[in-house]
């Protein structure tokens, strides 16, 4: 290796690293801006020259956001809806995934195709009849309406079926010899083995409930009572004199749980792509 090529490589790798840092800064800009604004006094949000910090670091904004709007209530509602919805998704889809992966029954392939076919229908087609259905059931402006309509999607079934198919049949056969029926083998063999897949499904389902906006916007009338976090945030648009520092504090708080989950689950992000890309309801 000649000296010039080593030098050239150093320069190239140097340029590459500088570019990388620029990309990271441009990308992080909006997030840094949000955190920075959330810590500024109200009258320093708009300054002629951008400043990272205001005259003081005002943590009080995070507490004030809860006074300014019922964000405590919104967070509780979001948490409850996301946890309940995720529970329904995980239970229903692990059961049906087991049937598709392990039980023999007539029309199994056709039914599975029908399941997958439901993935084609976009939420926007369903919202009008779903609203009418909620009216008929008396569920408008209720937790039921926030939880159940989107808790039966084929994504989870598909994801877990793929996983169950990789479990060697011998494991179940051994359990059978010990007198385990399908229920026992499902609960004692398959579910424990599927923990990684179920964890991925759980986290990504939780996140999609946590962020969902269009449906709560439609179905919730009493925002102060049944509103979720995204709905609470959206209340401020169009209002005169938006308290941007408090808004940003609330937005940052809405982001924190998902950021933590993404960082914790980083090894499994690829597997979550399917749930995320096809889901998002």
């Amino acid at each position, binding site marked *: 290796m000649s000296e010039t090529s080593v030098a050239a490589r150093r320069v190239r790798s140097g340029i590459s690293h500088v570019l990388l840092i620029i990309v*990271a800064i441009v990308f992080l800009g909006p997030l840094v801006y949000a955190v920075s604004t959330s810590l500024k006094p109200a009258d320093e949000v708009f300054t002629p020259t951008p400043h990272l910090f205001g005259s003081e670091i005002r943590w009080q904004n995070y507490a004030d956001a809860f006074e300014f709007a019922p964000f405590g209530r919104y967070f509780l509602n979001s948490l409850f809806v996301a946890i309940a919805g995720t529970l329904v998704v995980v239970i229903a889809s692990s059961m049906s995934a087991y049937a598709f992966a392990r039980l023999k029954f007539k029309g199994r392939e056709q039914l599975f195709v029908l399941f997958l076919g439901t993935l084609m229908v976009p*939420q926007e087609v369903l919202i009008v009849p779903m609203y009418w259905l909620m009216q008929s059931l008396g569920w408008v402006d209720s937790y039921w309406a926030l939880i159940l309509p989107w808790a039966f999607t084929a994504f989870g079934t598909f994801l877990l079926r793929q996983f169950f198919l990789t479990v060697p049949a011998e494991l179940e056969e051994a359990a059978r010899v010990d007198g385990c029926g399908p229920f026992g083998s499902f609960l004692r063999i398959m579910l424990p083995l599927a923990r990684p897949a179920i964890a991925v499904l759980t986290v990504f389902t939780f996140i999609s409930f946590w962020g969902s906006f269009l449906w709560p916007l439609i179905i919730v009338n009493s925002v102060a009572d049944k509103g979720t976090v995204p709905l609470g945030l959206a209340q401020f648009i169009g209002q005169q004199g938006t308290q941007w520092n408090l808004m940003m504090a609330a937005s940052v708080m809405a982001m924190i749980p998902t950021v933590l989950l993404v960082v914790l689950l980083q090894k499994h992000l690829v597997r979550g792509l399917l749930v995320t890309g096809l889901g998002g309801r």
Partner: protein
Amino acid sequence: MVTLNDTVAPTETVRSGRRPALRRDGRYASVFLAPSLAGLALFTLFPTAMALAISLFDWPVFGERKFLGFGNYTHLFGDPVFRRVVFNTALFVVLYVPLNVVLSLGLATWLGPKIKGRQAFRVLFFIPVMTPMVANVMVWRLLFQPGGLLDAGLNSWFGIDAPNFLGSSSWAMPAIVAMSIWQGFGYNFLVFSAALDQVPQSQLESAQIDGAGPLQRFRYVTWPMITPSIFFATTMTLITSFQVFAQPFILTQGGPGVSTQTIVMYVYNQGWQFLTMGLASAAGWVLFVIIMGITAIQFVGQRKWVNYDV
């Protein structure tokens, strides 16, 4: 669908083959399937059919319903607002999808397996994909405000008078596209970077020894192996970009005028501002047909360029 999953997560495709199931009892199956089947029937299959039915009626939220046949559809295609809304959505798709795919593929190739800290970038770029869309858009709304970071920064650092991004009919759509790319490209970045991991380094190295430059190596070694992922990513991005809602809803409310109103916003406005469910449902079905058509074209077209055998 099975192939789609295979392209994303090739490690999961090790199957145990078709072994005889442990129990040939349909009764067990019906118990296991009951919750999902009931839920999908009530909350997906039935509403899909109902959506079509509602779209054939004058269907106010309250009051008398009247059968119109295809009246709502003829009304839609005669409505200049609806035509504008379809145009806006198509414009968003045409700007957003190629930019997103090129940016994420470019970055994923650049941040190849040899770069340190690549996993950190994967996580970093994926964060806005997962954080609540409304929170993301609120941040960008402040960013684009007169007096916000872009305005103040351009003015004080470069002496440029920034336009009122969200209030200008020529800047509002690019602003929405820019925000959406920042939010969404981490998804495709992850898809592509997972696919690039599967390209054997040995083949790239032997191509290099044979004198192939970086572009040639990408074109003749990497590209054929990642076409399934490119297909998956473009199809998913196309489908979701036709459904764009929260970004224009919060950034511009569809304005100025209707210059950034999208199809889903139109559905929302017809249904829950004007309370005309029939029209809303018909517009939803038009969107569904567009998405199905695009997806079908994608699947037919893939035979020409997607390579599943490598």
